[in-house]
């Protein structure tokens, strides 16, 4: 078969790239080989547009055991305990088939974590949908939420929340980012690098079917009007089999027969075999007759490119195969010895006594084309001055914000996810961060996912910085020490200078904040081409942060704890309303600059709050983010069923600006009156700007000389949106 230009194009390869393939092989590739190149050279697997910039990110601190480049990142949390975590996107498949797309997104990220020997202990997700009135949104929201729940609930891993957002830039490109966190003994971490020649290559898990062929290539291109035709590229999930795979792998990992292990995720058998062998500087030989197939007459091309789920590739010490076989049989899973490691540094595939592919591994790894794409710098937009806000009622604005889709209570979503299974969920979804206990111990981890696409869109550099700080602040708010992050970088088409500029500058911001806060990136994923008919999503880096709570008795939550306590705002309010929820929801103003970040204040404020928490002076804490002081305070009231009387401090800031601005690096804290001087002394000592703004009281939230409302009324407004939107007709 000759390879026509059309075939090359259908494989997502450029002409120059094809020429490079011929040069690397010293001959024309056959169709199977072309498919393998296409799978390894696409953006999703090769990071060819992003590599240059990813290299610049900080990836180390004293807790990091494993940074980017493995199935997931690993951090140490004291004693023999380590935490394995990663986030990954499943955007394109979820738009085409929301239930299966989201479900297999969860399945894939869980495999990344248990591949390393860790038992998953929590999942989180960041999901973004188009405008609620767009005709596709309701179906996508319901499908994605059911899919996430369907997979995680069956696996029995608590869902620790995350974020759900709406914005018209996602109308034709939703985002589904799933994060998984696992716990492992530091001494029993498994890696993907193959070691030693002539060791057995073992295939375990589900059979290979014809689903998901070229899924990774599909995720490396824009959508157009023919998107529906891509349904067959979406994988179908089977969480029950994944549960078996999890238990079987963990059981086998107790012994010493595994040399290395890698899940078959994007680009299936191709990427797993290539990555394991090339990391180990070895070759690999596979006999495709041995692959367990779901259907008869599957071709080598289909076997190598299928993205059927719930499969793993293992390198087992020669002579120990039977240990593995016994365990996988016990769990009713397929088990096949499909090949050997070799010293040839080549991928060699045999099928029916013929050699059907022979590719030097460096051609699929180190020789992948890397692009230094052109990009455009963005300019920080100017503020609009002289807006007359006086006539706008504070209470009406608060109600409008609290009942808007983006600021409504997300209970409708969380209640479809099992979040208490495993018996270690200490803080459920809905707070600043969720808290999961380390089984059998009195320590725990805090986890959050954050993104701020409006900020990133308005000014990528500030936005990138802000989203890291937001995650850091959320972790501080629950009493944890922030340790490290994983990032999912969702952008449009990198071949466009504006999009590439957004990427480069967001990453600069992320890098600056991570470095300053000693909050490194240990794993992550890039998702480009979130674009349909030339319209790109807002740049959306999602940051998944993990923090450590050494003693769960020092944990803090955001719900108010009692009446007659004081509420203090830590951090300075200047009145920055651009890109705020108030401007967007109430004033309909969407332009202008995002708030700026002062990293010194960010760190100083956070460390001082940690200090107060360690001295047990804090009753509750909540970071002040979207919506500003009044929305933050309302959330504390609603979750605690306690009211508050707000008195504005004497300053020169207009009250709308004071109550709704989204200045960064601020927290609202609740303290007992008797602790007032102790708290204020510590804040003063550390040069922290603070203002006492309210006193807690029964049932009523009120603003002196302005409004008063029963918190039950506010709660209804805050709870209703999702239920009304999704009511069965």
């Amino acid at each position, binding site marked *: 078969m000759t390879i026509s230009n059309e075939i090359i194009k259908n494989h997502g390869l450029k002409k120059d790239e094809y020429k490079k393939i011929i040069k690397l092989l010293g001959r024309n590739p056959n169709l199977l080989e072309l498919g393998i190149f296409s799978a390894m050279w696409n953006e999703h697997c090769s990071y060819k547009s992003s590599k240059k910039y990813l290299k610049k990110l900080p990836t180390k601190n004293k807790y990091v055991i494993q940074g980017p480049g493995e199935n997931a990142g690993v951090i140490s949390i004291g004693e023999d305990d380590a935490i394995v975590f990663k986030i990954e996107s499943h955007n394109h498949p979820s738009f085409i088939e929301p239930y299966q797309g989201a479900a297999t997104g969860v399945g894939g990220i869980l495999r990344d974590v248990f591949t390393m020997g860790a038992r998953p202990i929590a999942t989180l997700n960041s999901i973004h949908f188009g405008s609620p009135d767009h005709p596709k949104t309701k179906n996508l929201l319901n499908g994605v939420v*059911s899919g996430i729940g369907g997979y995680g*609930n*069956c696996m029995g891993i608590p869902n620790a929340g995350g974020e759900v957002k709406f914005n018209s830039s996602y109308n034709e490109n939703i985002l589904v980012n799933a994060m998984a966190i696992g716990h492992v003994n530091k001494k029993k971490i498994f890696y993907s690098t193959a070691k030693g020649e002539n060791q057995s290559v073992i295939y375990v898990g589900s059979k290979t079917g014809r689903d998901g062929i070229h899924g990774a290539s599909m995720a490396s291109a824009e959508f157009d009007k023919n998107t529906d035709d891509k349904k067959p590229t979406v994988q179908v999930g089977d969480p*029950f089999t994944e*549960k078996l795979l999890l238990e079987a792998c963990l059981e086998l990992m107790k012994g010493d027969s595994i040399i290395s292990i890698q899940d078959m995720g994007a680009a299936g058998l191709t990427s797993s075999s290539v990555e394991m062998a090339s990391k180990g500087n070895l070759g690999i030989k596979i006999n495709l007759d041995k692959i367990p197939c779901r259907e008869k007459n599957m071709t080598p091309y289909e076997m190598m490119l299928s993205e059927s789920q719930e499969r793993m590739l293992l390198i087992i010490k020669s002579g120990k195969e039977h240990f593995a076989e016994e365990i996988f049989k016990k*769990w009713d899973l397929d088990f096949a010895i499909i090949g050997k490691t070799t010293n040839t540094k080549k991928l060699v595939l045999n099928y029916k006594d013929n050699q059907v592919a022979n590719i030097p591994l460096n051609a699929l790894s180190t020789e992948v084309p890397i692009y230094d794409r052109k990009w455009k710098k963005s300019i920080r937009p100017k503020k609009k001055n002289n807006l007359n806000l006086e006539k706008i009622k504070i209470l009406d604005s608060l109600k409008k914000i609290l009942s808007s889709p983006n600021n409504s209570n997300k209970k409708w979503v969380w*209640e479809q996810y099992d979040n208490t*299974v495993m*018996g270690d969920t200490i803080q459920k979804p809905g707070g600043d961060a969720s808290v999961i206990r380390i089984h059998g111990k009195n320590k725990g981890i805090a986890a959050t996912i954050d993104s701020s696409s409006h900020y990133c869109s308005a000014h990528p550099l500030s936005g990138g910085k802000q989203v890291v700080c937001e995650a850091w602040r959320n972790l501080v708010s629950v009493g944890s020490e922030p340790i490290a992050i994983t990032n999912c970088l969702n952008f449009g088409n990198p071949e466009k200078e504006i999009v590439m500029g957004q990427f480069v500058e967001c990453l600069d911001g992320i890098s600056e904040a991570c470095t300053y806060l000693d909050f490194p990136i240990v794993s992550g994923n890039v998702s480009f081409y979130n674009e349909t008919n030339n319209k790109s999503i807002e740049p959306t880096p999602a940051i998944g942060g993990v923090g450590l709570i050494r003693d769960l008795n020092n944990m803090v939550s955001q719900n108010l704890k009692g009446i007659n306590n004081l509420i203090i705002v830590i951090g300075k309010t200047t009145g920055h309303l651009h890109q705020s929820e108030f401007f967007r929801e109430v004033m309909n103003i969407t332009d202008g600059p995002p708030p700026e970040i002062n990293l010194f204040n960010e760190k100083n404020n956070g460390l001082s709050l940690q200090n107060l928490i360690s001295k047990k002076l804090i009753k509750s804490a909540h970071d002040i983010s979207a919506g500003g002081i009044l929305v933050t305070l309302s959330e504390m009231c609603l979750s605690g069923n306690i009211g508050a009387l707000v008195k504005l401090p004497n300053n020169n800031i207009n009250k709308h600006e004071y109550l709704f601005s989204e200045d960064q690096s601020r927290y609202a804290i609740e303290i007992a009156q008797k602790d007032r001087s102790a708290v204020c002394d510590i804040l003063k000592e550390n040069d922290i700007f603070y203002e006492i703004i309210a006193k807690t009281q029964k049932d009523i939230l009120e603003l002196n000389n302005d409004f008063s409302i029963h918190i039950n009324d506010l709660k209804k407004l805050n709870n209703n949106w999702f239920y009304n939107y999704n009511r069965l007709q």
Partner: protein
Amino acid sequence: MKSSVIVFPGSNCDRDVAVALEKFQIKNQMVWHNDLSLPKSDLVVLPGGFSYGDYLRTGSIAGKSKIIKEVIEHAKNGGLVLGICNGFQILTETGLLPGVLLRNKDLKFISKNVYLKVTNTNNVFCTNFKKKNVVEFPIAHNEGNFFANDNLLNKLEDQNLIAFKYCNNKGEINDEANPNGSSKNIAGVLNEKKNVLGLMPHPERVIEPLLSGKDGSLLFESLLK
């Protein structure tokens, strides 16, 4: 007291319930679904989860599994059996408990804390609820909508075989407090001999204050008496 927790391949609350049993000094063993015999036990627990994936009707394959014959025998001899969530679904499939568990009324998985009224405290699982008979447990299920025909419902009421009903925080049993559409707000039932209990809520997830409550302890403490 000795217990056995049956582990089906898709069980996912097996560890949780084992932790709870051990916390209350019940000596527990895990029993694999393919085993042919049950170790000597006073109590057998069928844990929550997705026994064999539950792609078919929930609990239906587990109801025909190898070990289940032994569990039925154990129950018939008067041994205690506790089925939680998927375990309850399995018990209705085996016929050890009456009724069926249908898909939730709103067709969504529901995971949240609910209030329960303990409507029968004269059985070995529930004696400790005499001191507190409105309790808060989490539920986490897709098929928890208990259904029985009127004859059966009358029989359950007449013979006092309903152990738990969904209620509000004041103990009032009404439609608003019914999360999944269950007939008569039923959350848990007993067999006639009252040695088999099945319930959808998860007592094992609320056994200490850090886990947003410890009402579940009352059930395990009852077993010790």
